């Protein structure tokens, strides 16, 4: 099958028909098909060994770009294997933009970029922004920042990978048909995908211009706090949060310098999701 997410088309194949079917269903709102297009990356989920197609089936990835040390994934977690494969192509092979390990959302085509380690609350915050606060979802994991003059953000709105306790938080707010299957016992615990609102997927070709950078720190019980980053701090954070910026040479350096000179960056600490949303809205009010 072919699938387009933001600017990249993936050719995805597997002898495990069920895995492909669940992928097709999860990505039902995204462009599929496109037989006559030049695609960016190929990703195949193959049995680890020939007999592993039937006996305790497990998956290894074969793709344009792979890492040597990847371990096999059980067939029941095939959706994660595809996600891993697709992300790996972007992280290792996509060079047209700076790729930040960050969530992003837009309002009136101006964007907030949410950068942070996994576990910092990035995915939850981005899910809440798009499902509760009316923001246009632009991605929960990778943010693409253009190398050209205006450092514009190209949406890459993949389904949001909710983990563990953030799943019930969103189940309360979003109808069940927007959720993928519940994947138990993965390396990250329980994972369930949440589809972004259809509008956000349909608008994925419309760029947005970054206006605010936040780095969330969710700590249960913490009182809300905002701290402005210095420019060099912001540069460092974003550079090491990027999969490719350091390998892009001078254009990567330029684009990141322009971004952090023009867009303010903040650390925000909060103890509940609502507070997190409020802090983002407050900072957004300041930049507007």
């Amino acid at each position: 099958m072919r699938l387009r997410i933001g600017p990249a088309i993936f050719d995805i194949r597997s002898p495990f028909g069920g895995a492909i079917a669940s992928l097709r269903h999860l990505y039902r709102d995204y462009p599929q098909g496109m037989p006559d297009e030049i695609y960016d990356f190929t990703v195949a989920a193959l049995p680890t060994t020939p007999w592993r197609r039937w006996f305790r089936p497990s998956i290894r990835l074969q793709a344009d770009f792979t890492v040597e040390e990847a371990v096999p994934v059980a067939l029941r977690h095939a959706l994660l294997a595809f996600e891993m494969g697709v992300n790996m192509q972007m992280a290792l092979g996509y060079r047209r933009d700076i790729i930040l390990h960050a969530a992003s959302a837009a309002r009136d085509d101006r964007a907030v970029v949410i950068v942070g380690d996994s576990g910092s609350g990035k995915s939850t915050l981005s899910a809440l922004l798009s499902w509760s606060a009316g923001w246009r979802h632009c991605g929960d994991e990778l943010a693409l920042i253009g190398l050209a003059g205006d450092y514009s953000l190209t949406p890459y709105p993949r389904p949001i990978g909710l983990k563990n306790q953030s799943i019930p938080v969103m189940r309360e707010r979003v109808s069940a048909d927007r959720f993928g299957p519940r994947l138990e016992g993965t390396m990250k615990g329980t994972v369930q995908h949440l589809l972004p609102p259809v509008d956000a997927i349909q608008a994925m070709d419309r760029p947005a211009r970054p206006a605010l950078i936040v780095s969330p720190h969710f700590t249960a019980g913490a009182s809300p706090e905002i701290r402005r980053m210095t420019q060099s701090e912001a540069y460092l954070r974003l550079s090491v949060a990027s999969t490719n910026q350091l390998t892009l040479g001078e254009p990567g350096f330029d684009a990141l310098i322009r971004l952090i000179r023009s867009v303010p960056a903040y650390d925000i600490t909060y103890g509940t999701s609502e507070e997190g949303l409020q802090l983002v809205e407050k900072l957004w009010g300041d930049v507007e």
Partner: protein
Amino acid sequence: MTDQNSDQEGMMQPKEPEVNARRRVLKLGAVAVPAIATLTPSMAMATGGGVGGANISILACQVPIPDRIDEDGEVVPAHKNLHYDGHQAYYYENGKRGKKKYVFNAPYQGHYSGQEIKDGYLNNRYIHDAQFKAHVEYLQKMRNSGTGGAGISCLMSITNSSYKT
């Protein structure tokens, strides 16, 4: 956007009042205190490359550990004879009168996954698990030596993933 030279020259021959405005004592720090931090292209693979795999690839990647690591994290040369205290192997560092050092095998699969190491760090596993502690010592040495090798980019990505300024 200054190319070295142009603006810099201007800055170096400022008019007198500007000099006064900038006048403050310049203190040169001790040499041991780093005055430059360098971001090098290979770090993109070490930190970011793993990140892109949904952090799954970070945690799924493998950090191989050789067999026969001593308690200080050194690889025990193949020619050293091992002795046993019950099941615990040890050897003498410099002949019979040398220091007695405990020796640990590789973890059962020959490597740790990123997840195991991350969990181990978080749960302070090295305090009660002497084998894990020896392996952590070994990994620290590998990491500090800065050399590549299988699994080191994985290790870097786990232990560097939260950058603090």
